[in-house]
């Protein structure tokens, strides 16, 4: 509870869930969005004196909605908030000591005192996935991957490690790097995933880095595609960084297996029917005439000189949706699942 203490001291201020969530994400680069959301909710409960069930649920509901509204892409975090809420409700409904007749304080105490444990478990689940997924990286194979997924990184590093099994796997990696997140204050940022590339090279794994435009060209040399995901949706598809969908399509066209590595707390109850059906606003496709460009320039003349690339032409945090039929299997901490198994997992906690 080390991080919570300083915040406890200034308890007089109203608790800001959005700031807490962002702080948590920034403070620990290993933290995923759902876990940060759960953490933020736990901290919220620490701050609120509510002692009745409905009061707490109401508070959670309000804060969750507020949090979702304030974050541009709430798909990942809503997996965490949903899981938290369902856990609370299910435990309260179950007969037993913590059930309806039982002690609400006991649950509250359990959640408040174990927040560190949740984070640890979430990180441990990556190890678990790495163990399951190790079999997918074969000796002499070439793996194509993209993005900055920490789970994929830990899986590949585990495979390269002597410790992971009887012997280290000798494999090559083709790493698809997308242009770095360039914004005004940080112009020298490096592409996401470069850190993983360095770590793998340090372990003696030959890594080739290619731009997104070279995926189709390089896929012929790859045996398997392994990607991470921001959220796994109800039909078994994934919401992941922009560019994953096209890799999935190309892998399907070339008959290469396409595996998704994700922790089961990323399963989220969203059922997108297509790319443009995601519950988020992203202006990736933005039609403009010269007139529109000129008016936009006039409106912000100060910024115009900073970069020739218009902001709207580049979306570092954009995501796309990879439909389930492109996915061979999902490697999760509850085992290797087919895409259709995801809905069952979700049904188990919702109904």
């Amino acid at each position, binding site marked *: 509870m080390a991080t919570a203490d300083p915040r406890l001291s200034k308890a007089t201020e109203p608790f800001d869930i959005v700031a807490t969530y962002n702080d948590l994400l920034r403070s620990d680069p290993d933290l995923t969005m759902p876990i940060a959301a759960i953490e933020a909710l736990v901290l919220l409960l620490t701050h609120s004196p509510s002692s009745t069930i409905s009061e707490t649920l109401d508070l959670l509901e309000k804060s969750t909605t507020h949090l979702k509204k304030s974050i541009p892409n709430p798909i990942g975090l809503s997996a965490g908030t949903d899981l938290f809420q369902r*856990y609370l409700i299910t*435990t309260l409904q179950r007969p*037993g000591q913590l059930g309806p007749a039982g002690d609400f304080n006991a649950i509250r105490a359990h959640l408040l005192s174990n927040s560190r444990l949740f984070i640890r*478990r979430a990180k441990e689940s990556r190890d678990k996935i790495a163990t399951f997924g190790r*079999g997918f990286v074969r000796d002499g194979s070439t793996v194509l991957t993209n993005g900055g997924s920490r789970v994929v990184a830990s899986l590949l590093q585990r495979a390269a490690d002597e410790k992971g099994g009887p012997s280290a796997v000798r494999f090559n990696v083709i790493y698809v790097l997308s242009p770095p997140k360039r914004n005004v204050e940080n112009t020298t940022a490096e592409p996401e995933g470069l850190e993983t590339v360095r770590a793998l090279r340090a372990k003696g794994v030959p890594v080739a880095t290619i731009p997104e435009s070279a995926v189709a060209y390089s896929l012929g040399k790859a045996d398997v595609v392994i990607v991470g995901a921001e959220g796994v949706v109800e039909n078994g598809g994934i919401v992941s960084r922009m560019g994953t969908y096209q890799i999935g399509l190309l892998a399907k066209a070339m008959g290469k297996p396409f595996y998704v590595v994700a922790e*089961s707390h990323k399963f989220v109850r969203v059922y997108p029917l297509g790319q443009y059906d995601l519950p988020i606003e992203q202006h990736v496709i933005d039609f403009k005439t010269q007139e529109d460009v000129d008016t936009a320039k006039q409106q912000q003349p100060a910024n115009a000189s900073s970069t020739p690339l218009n902001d709207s032409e580049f979306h570092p945090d954009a995501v796309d949706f990879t439909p389930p039929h492109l996915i*061979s*299997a999902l490697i999760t901490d*509850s085992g290797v699942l087919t895409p259709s198994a995801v809905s069952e997992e979700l049904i188990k*906690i919702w109904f």
Partner: protein
Amino acid sequence: MSPPSAPLTPGLASFLKSLKTNPIDTSIDNLISLLKRRQIRHSRSCATATAYLLRSVVSACRTSDASKLIERVQSVGKRLIAAQPREMVVGNIVRRVLGLIRDEAEDDRDGEFNLSEAGSESQPQTPRASDDPSDSLYGRHDGSALKPLSSLAAHPISMFSLLSHPEPEHSLPGTPGSASPSGRSPGHTQNNDIRAEVLDGINEIIDELGQVDDQISAYALDHIHSNEIILTHTSSTTVQKFLLKAAAKRKFTVIHAESYPNNHEATHATVSGTATNDDELLSTESFQKPLIAHGITVILIPDSAVFALMSRVNKVILGTHSVLANGGLVAAAGTRVIARAAKVHQTPVVVVSGVYKLSPVYPFDFDSLIEYGDSSKVIGFEDGDLVEQIDVQNPLYDYVPAELVDLYITNLGGHAPSYLYRIVSDHYRKEDISF
């Protein structure tokens, strides 16, 4: 290690006969050598032999401790699997037996747990008054407060495992409270029952192995309609029974690919009805009348003609060697060509298979699943000159990916390939998948 009482041709029948007389270790070695020499080779023969052997192992294992029983079965299972890793049904049966033992052991422990819970319920729950959350949690650590959470965590897969209580298994052995002395002694008498109940369970598996084809054939009329043209492959008993069942009510045409060179003799015999019961199991079953005796037109074709005829075929019905967790299957060589041709013509592919063939193994490496057989079946040794010049390979099996299969029919009913993971998780315990 061949037993003195064994008949001339070692196989399933001789093994089952010798099982009654031989000591258990001799029988284990016997089955291992049979598997290694491929003297037992059909999926069901292997499954039956394994089930009977494990029944003897369990009944010979004079222990009342479930964990020792599990250990024993595991060690025998490991040796059997090592003897023939590609015969996945052996592992499946071992896993199911292990699952049986675990189920029984857990039922037992649950009984114990209820006792201890009843005991601790009588204690006043003082920790509730305590303000410090960690204190009250630890106060309950040995009590019934953990029950709902631990039962939640006992679910094989749950997303809640992230948020659930720490170390739920703590509560299982750690119930040294008031009730444990009284809970122990009934536990011991129940432990003796474990073995009897496990033996019952194994008998059920053996029964299932005997009935599986009939159960599958019960679905035949739902899938074979009048005047359809059905294409099949190899002399699979399951497929033949399936077709025979439909033949009793309906008229249809069967195109039978001969599956040269490994299975063509058996296939010819099946088609013409002159099967000489080379498969030991067949002799006990009333499987005499071939399809032609029921007035069904059967057309025997070479494997190379499959694609040419596929455009006329209404449905492809295939037998299999084993089915994998991702919905793919390992079947006799030539199956993939048929499935691929069916895909090109949009012809539905139906695979009939007993649940015992369904393996929790995930095919990471397809090549390692394929077994290679006697190359002299392709080119005889009389062509000695040629044999020296070329490399002859005779793969016995094909891996067929899940997307080429439309439907699986097992003794539980019809399933989409993407649903098989569910049947796997119903039949095998998670902890037994890699033992």
